[in-house]
């Protein structure tokens, strides 16, 4: 077993373990912090997959942006007004049956499929390649993504601001 393999197992363990904590924890703050470890674990897996740009973006956007936003949400809706947060679960049985059925099918399909299992492509830095394609072939999606962000910004402001006083 090489060091690479060990790294994979450790990261996979961190990712799955903390994901389980996210779903099962009774304390919403624990969930939020477990999510942090999932994000870092996934970022580590990206590094193993030679996706340097995506790994850095994952840390910056997910950990630095989305997670902070979620923790803000938790703080704004629980601590300030001191309302008890219910974190129990609902209809566990049926949910497990449904997800089990779906995922069983998916696993089966993956087992049945033949794979190109060797990482035979040598990447030397993906950032340049991604940057070039974003400015050429993928210019349009890039622009659409910026419009999506603008709409989200506007939408969040419209909904969350205080009532405008109408004269």
């Amino acid at each position, binding site marked *: 077993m090489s060091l690479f393999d060990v790294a994979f197992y450790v990261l996979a363990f961190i990712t799955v373990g903390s994901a389980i904590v996210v779903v099962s924890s009774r304390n919403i703050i624990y969930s939020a912090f477990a999510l942090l470890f999932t994000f870092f674990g996934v970022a580590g897996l990206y590094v193993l997959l030679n996706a340097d740009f995506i790994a850095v973006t994952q840390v910056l956007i997910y950990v630095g942006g989305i997670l902070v936003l979620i923790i803000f949400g938790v703080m704004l809706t629980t601590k300030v007004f001191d309302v008890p947060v219910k974190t129990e679960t609902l209809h566990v049985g049926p949910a497990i049956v449904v997800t089990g059925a779906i995922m069983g099918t998916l696993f089966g399909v993956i087992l049945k499929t033949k794979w190109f299992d060797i990482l035979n492509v040598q990447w030397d830095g993906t950032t340049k390649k991604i940057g070039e394609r974003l400015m050429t072939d993928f210019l349009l999606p890039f622009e659409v993504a910026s419009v999506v962000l603008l709409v989200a910004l506007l939408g969040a402001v419209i*909904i969350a601001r205080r009532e405008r006083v109408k004269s």
Partner: protein
Amino acid sequence: MNFYNDLLGISPVLIVSLAGLIVVILEALFKKGETISYFLSIISLILAGLFAIYTYSMYSTAFNGMVAVGGYASFFNFIFCVGALLTILLSKDYLAKRNINYGEFYILVLFATAGMMFLASGVDLIITFLGIELMSISLYVLAAFARTDPKSNEAGLKYLLLGAFATGFLLFGIAFIYGSTTTTNLKVISANFQNYQNDFLFWLGVGLLLVGFSFKVAAVPFHMWAPDVYEGAPTPASGFMSAVSKSAAFGAFVLVFIFGFNGTNEQVRYAIAIISVLSMALGNIIALSQTNIKRMLAYSSIAHAGYILIGLASANELGKQGVLYYSLAYILMQVGAFGVVSIVEREENKALNINDYAGLGHRKPLIGVLMSIFMFSLTGFPPFAGFVGKYYLFASAVQAKMTWLAVAGVLATLVSVYYYLNVVINMYLKEQPAEVLNNPEQEKISISSAFAVLISAIGIFIIGILPTLVTRYFEKLF
């Protein structure tokens, strides 16, 4: 294609998004910018519609095969402009009535329209995905637009949670398709389609995409969000969501499943047929027991998703034309019907019961006649567009040797006669409530709203009598 041609090709989207950006700035600059925003949105949508007609004959793709241009895309761009225009005309008085008259409503409608245009013309799954998200995020905010109304907030939250959940499935589908085909471009996938016939991973991706799209068109068993969202959202926005965004999702559905995956295979088509039958059955049966007219229209919209899915299940020329024709007809009738609801509705979610329509046909003859036209067309009575659309869809099922599907459609239509006609009977044959008779000025109708519903009714009538006006554009789509 050079850059100028690319820009000309996507000019409808460009105009709508630019207008959205300008309205954002206007809203920031002027304290009472609502009226300016309103007129600017109307002008930009008319302009975009004209450009959609102008680019019809281009038949190409733009931006390195990212979006389709002309033909198919132009048709859908045009009908989205019509739907958005009607929505904006209807919403001005409604927003004033609900005391939420902010210009941001128009911005969101414009950006949602831009998202729909991308969605229905995306030849690359990345554009399809971003189009869906641009549309959905705008619609989440529109659903929650009445911020102080808990019902509206709740509609927004439910729509967002289930929409994001569906996005997960859709994305996983795209990931699997990318994994098996090494591309996201539908043209490339379509050209090499025979290579993937026996690829499990590919068909798994197709199945997950089917789940994602079924969520977006609110087909059974992925429909549970629709009635709540359409009931809680501001009424013109409900019409916009239930009709226009559904047509956009169907536009992408046809593009991906029929053009991209070459009509898919027997099993997937049967799966679509089953979803279609379930939607028609469940939507119509639950609609029978509804007393709130918005919920009734919401359940009937689930049934209509079922009718349109017939065209996808049969996946032949007639089915394709049926989906396109029905999309236009459905936008006109559903936005029109929700328009009448928004005119009749009063403050604080009042007058939304079907009983509140008692005697409306005598008090407001014009509105009564128009509402009857929408109800008859939604049912599928002959001179109106709903009939022609259903005829196309059912005929396509027979042609594809799925006669049982057409029979199910006809039976579902028969069930729907009851609840649609119930509204008409209420309007003409029931006693008027004394409370409304005593203060008639409660039901004032503004010119712009009346104009919007009138236009939809006339449109239904014209394309119902002369379907060739529309169908001749379906002969060459790409």
